């Protein structure tokens, strides 16, 4: 979908991108970086709106330097900031944007109705945008990026300003853009937890450099931790302890989930594969306890940041 090769962008005073080489395949890809890491600059270059200082980039197999207009016809873009006029309705606005993407009038109207429905705007789409909630505005912004059925969309901080429920809905929607609509997504965020749930791949950039690019599962699945919580019975007044002892007896190391909600009642163990789940189930059944919960606690992507920070500090230390 996207391929860059030692892509650099230098401004008189700052280097926004520094020999960035990444390959992004189909699916949902998260682009992570702190503010000023070069995310927006990268999107600008990929849309063919800003020439790279050096290196090259391709989007959908088209060179950004020469085929910008063709790329922009097949790509959607949802900006981070507000971009909606308050005095027109969502329908009018999205129809206009569809025509700006080259859709004939009739198709523009049909696609607008479809797209607004898919992003979850129904009757309110005939009302002026000025009266919408932030969540609805984000949906309109998303709709205008999808209305021309692009093959790839760039979403710049789509969950900005949303409450937790709105955030979840938006993330679900982003997931569906790929699974149901068949459109690949490049989504930027500085909230790693979000990307972990929605993305197939994550690209981390920092200071214009590639920090890491791999699939989300690589980030989080190296070691899967299992959290379990059980009930107590008359036979085993401290169920948690009983399970721990039983598991110890079978050679599985178990930690207390100290520092987690429900500390003292939660056990953490490292899974070695499918058989661990069976083992836990059997142990608990044998003891006659009730299983309150058993959930995967994946390592968070943020730990990657911590690791890389540590590495960087180390490198700086060596440099001295």
């Amino acid at each position, binding site marked *: 979908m996207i391929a860059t090769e030692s892509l650099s962008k230098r401004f008189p005073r700052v280097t926004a991108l520094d020999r960035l080489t990444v390959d992004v395949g189909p699916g949902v890809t998260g682009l992570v970086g702190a503010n000023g890491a070069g995310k927006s600059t990268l999107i600008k270059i990929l849309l063919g709106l800003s020439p790279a200082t050096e290196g090259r980039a391709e989007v959908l197999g088209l060179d950004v330097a020469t085929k910008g207009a063709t790329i922009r016809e097949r790509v959607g873009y949802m900006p981070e900031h507000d971009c909606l*006029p308050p005095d027109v309705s969502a329908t009018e606005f999205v129809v206009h944007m569809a025509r*700006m993407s080259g859709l004939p009038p009739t198709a523009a109207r049909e696609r607008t109705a479809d797209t607004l429905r898919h992003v979850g705007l129904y009757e309110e789409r005939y009302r002026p945008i000025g009266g919408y909630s932030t969540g609805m505005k984000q949906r309109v912004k998303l709709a205008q990026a999808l209305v021309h*059925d692009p093959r790839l969309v760039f979403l710049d901080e789509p969950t900005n300003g949303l409450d937790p429920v709105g955030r979840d809905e938006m993330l679900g929607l982003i997931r569906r853009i790929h699974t149901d609509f068949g459109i690949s997504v490049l989504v930027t965020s500085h909230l790693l937890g979000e990307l972990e749930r929605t993305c197939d791949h994550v690209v981390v950039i920092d200071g214009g450099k590639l920090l890491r690019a791999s699939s989300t599962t690589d980030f989080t699945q190296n070691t899967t931790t299992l959290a379990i919580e059980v009930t107590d019975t008359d036979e085993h007044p401290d169920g948690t302890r009983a399970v721990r002892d039983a598991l110890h007896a079978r050679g599985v190391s178990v930690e207390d989930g100290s520092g987690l909600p429900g500390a003292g009642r939660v056990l953490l163990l490292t899974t070695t594969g499918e058989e661990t789940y069976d083992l836990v189930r059997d142990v608990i059944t044998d003891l006659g306890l009730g299983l309150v919960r058993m959930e995967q606690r994946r390592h968070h992507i943020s730990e990657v940041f911590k690791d890389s920070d540590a590495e960087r500090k180390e490198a700086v230390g060596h440099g001295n």
Partner: protein
Amino acid sequence: MATEQPTPAAAGDQTRIHNIGYRGYDGPRLGRAYARRSLYSQSLRGAYGLGRSAKTKVLPMLLFAVMCVPAGIMVAVAVATKADELPLRYTTYAVVMQAVISLYLASQAPQSVSRDLRFKTVPLYFSRPIETADYVRAKYAALTSALFVLTAVPLLVLYVGALLAKLDFTDQTKGFAQGLVSVALLSLLFAGVGLVVASVTPRRGFGIAAVIAVLTIPYGAVSTLQAIADVQDSSGAVPWIGLFSPITLIDGVQTAFLGATSGFPGGTGPSTAEGLVYVLVTLGLIAGSYGLLIRRYKKVGL
């Protein structure tokens, strides 16, 4: 959003609406030129409030009516009194009605460009096939066309009325043609000036005031200076002073080349040589406005 899931087609003859899930688009994508045309027609319609809320139609339609009514009255008078010429030349009409034209420009130029800047809609355009030049050309052409409609329709009313009053066909046609050239030039110049001012004043209200100021302050200054120069027996300076405001520029051009009577004090318009300077300055301003707009929009990208 479980309702969005594709529903398996129900067996049998039930007439139910099925949610067929996401449909892709395989139809034509008409590209840049089409997008530019669409933006042009949307902006032109918008300049008269068409396709927008009822509130936005009031002012442009009112001003359009105000432009046309005097023409209608003049025609009625000419027909009723069986006059052998219209009370006013075609080329004079726009100069007389300049306040209305300025008001229209002040209300519609910000509407056309400032909204996109204020609400940051511009990046949405430029993330699509159209480019800076397409956007500027579409907006410029749309406002020019809107002004042309505003200024040429009253002339058409005069012309049709003149023919109904059985005035001399050749004379009237020539005058009408000269009038059309004059208002076309005026539309280009005013649209350019209005758009440049509006594109640097994204804030609501401020753009309107700025456009009015840019049109009226130079005109006031120029007329005053011309009057003083005329009284002080230095009427040679009058045409040169006229170069410094949009409406007197148009006045000078049409006096020199389009058979108009000058509105300058003393009625002395520019000579042919001076008129040439007027034409050059006018064309320079139009080109300059276009250049400034392109520069302005290069900066606002994403």
